[in-house]
């Protein structure tokens, strides 16, 4: 195992001899990983926000003003048996008024002067997550409107279209930006290790002629890449942690949904970033060293 000893010794010596370029490499890797992990966190949280929003999406089915209790039950049963429908909520006239009161807040006092409740009763339907496709929901709404006892069907049409667009754009940009940054990170280490490799090309040629094995030649470079990646990843991780801490401390309650996107962060990511850095950099240096032929 003296190969490993010599390799580590050589790697550390070379890292130290070129500390600035190595620090800059680690720093660049760190920046890349910081952007990537921030992006992943945002995407991740955004996704759960979207899920929450999707869960809140409901079709409101207003019933005829003069509908009988039996007819209401019939409609409810029909909805309950519908495989597309996840949840059925009945909102009576009184409940509707109570909700309005909540919405009005301090101005609710104006409702005190009402003589009769002008609001209709309604059902709120939640559809299954994967059925929330604009065209499908539209068809569904039209079908329901045809049923007897129904006065009107309402849902956020534009809202639903946007939800779909956002989801799709997010997926596409996750793959695109994530992939691009990963390639860039691999490349940055590749580049640095390639510099070292070229700088020691003569040495490598000579080592080969003196009878050095492939692992004797390669190991120092791979170790250098690995160390650069770990350091870079740690920089990225610390930066992420720092930024996150600042954001949490500032208590951003500006837009609740933005807060949700920024503030919630899985702890694993702080460990994953250095691991990812090490992996990417290792791949980069592996490619940089290339195939050694005698």
């Amino acid at each position: 195992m003296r190969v490993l000893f010599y390799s580590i010794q050589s790697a550390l010596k070379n890292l130290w001899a070129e500390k600035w370029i190595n620090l800059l490499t680690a720093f660049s890797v760190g920046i890349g990983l910081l952007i990537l992990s921030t992006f992943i966190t945002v995407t991740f949280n955004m996704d759960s926000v979207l899920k929450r929003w999707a869960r809140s999406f409901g079709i409101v089915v207003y019933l005829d003003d003069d509908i009988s209790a039996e007819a209401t039950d019939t409609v409810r049963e029909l909805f309950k048996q519908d495989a597309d429908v996840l949840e059925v909520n009945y909102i009576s006239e009184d409940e509707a008024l109570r909700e309005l009161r909540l919405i009005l807040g301090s101005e609710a006092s104006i409702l005190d002067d009402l003589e009769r409740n002008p609001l209709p009763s309604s059902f709120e339907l939640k559809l299954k997550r994967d059925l929330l496709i604009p065209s499908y929901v539209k068809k569904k709404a039209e079908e329901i409107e045809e049923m007897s006892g129904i006065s009107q069907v309402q849902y956020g049409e534009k809202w639903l279209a946007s939800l779909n667009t956002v989801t799709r754009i997010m997926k596409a940009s996750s793959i695109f930006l994530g992939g691009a940054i990963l390639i860039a990170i691999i490349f940055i280490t590749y580049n640095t290790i390639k510099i070292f490799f070229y700088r020691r090309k003569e040495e490598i040629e000579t080592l080969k002629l003196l009878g050095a094995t492939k692992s004797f030649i390669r190991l120092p470079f791979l170790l250098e890449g690995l160390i650069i990646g770990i350091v870079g990843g740690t920089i990225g991780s610390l930066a992420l942690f720092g930024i996150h801490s600042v954001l949490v401390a500032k208590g951003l309650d500006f837009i609740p949904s933005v807060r949700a996107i920024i503030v919630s962060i899985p702890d694993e990511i702080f460990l994953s970033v250095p691991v990812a850095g090490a992996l990417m950099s290792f791949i980069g240096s592996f490619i940089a060293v290339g195939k050694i032929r005698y």
Partner: protein
Amino acid sequence: MIQFIDVSKFYEDVVLKDISFSINKGELAFITGPSGVGKTTLLKLIYAETIPDEGNITVAGWEIRDLKQRTIPYLRRHVGVVFQDFRLLHNKTVFDNVALALRIHNMHPKEIKEDVNEVLKDVKLKHKTNAFPQHLSGGEQQRVVIARAMVSRPTVLLADEPTGNLDSANSEIVMNLFKEINARGTTVLIATHNESLFHHTGRRVIYLKDTAIEREVSG
């Protein structure tokens, strides 16, 4: 120890054609011939820097033809080479240049230190131990290369024009070194155009001319 059977090597032109000879274990022999005749090429075939286009070569029991990429390093550890173009590393001291030949054997640092210091004494470069090659004269560099080739106690020592940069006094020192190494049992093969190296030594000399062996004589 070294055996060539009908070996040919072509680059753009034919360089060597149907070369056959053999050097016995413990021998010290010379290869000579005009510039560009193929002396260096012949040595490169021995340590597998290049492979023959025809024929068979055996070195210290290894069949060059059948060598796998993986086993080439192990052949080379048995063959010390004094390169015509030196191949010294400019960013390493004389000590480290010589030590490299032992490090790749994964030898213990303490043993390395002892062996390197001893061999630097042999080539009269003890005082340049920590100098860098580009700070040495041509003749001093020549001797560092010889030291590096010797230090791992190879079975076979190849020397390519080892006195090209040396005056006659230093040439004699170096030749005496080779004789000593040879006396300790190492097979030595020296490529040179300097006839005074082999005149009146009684050693075998292989004359190359126009891609072929012209004659073998005792110098």
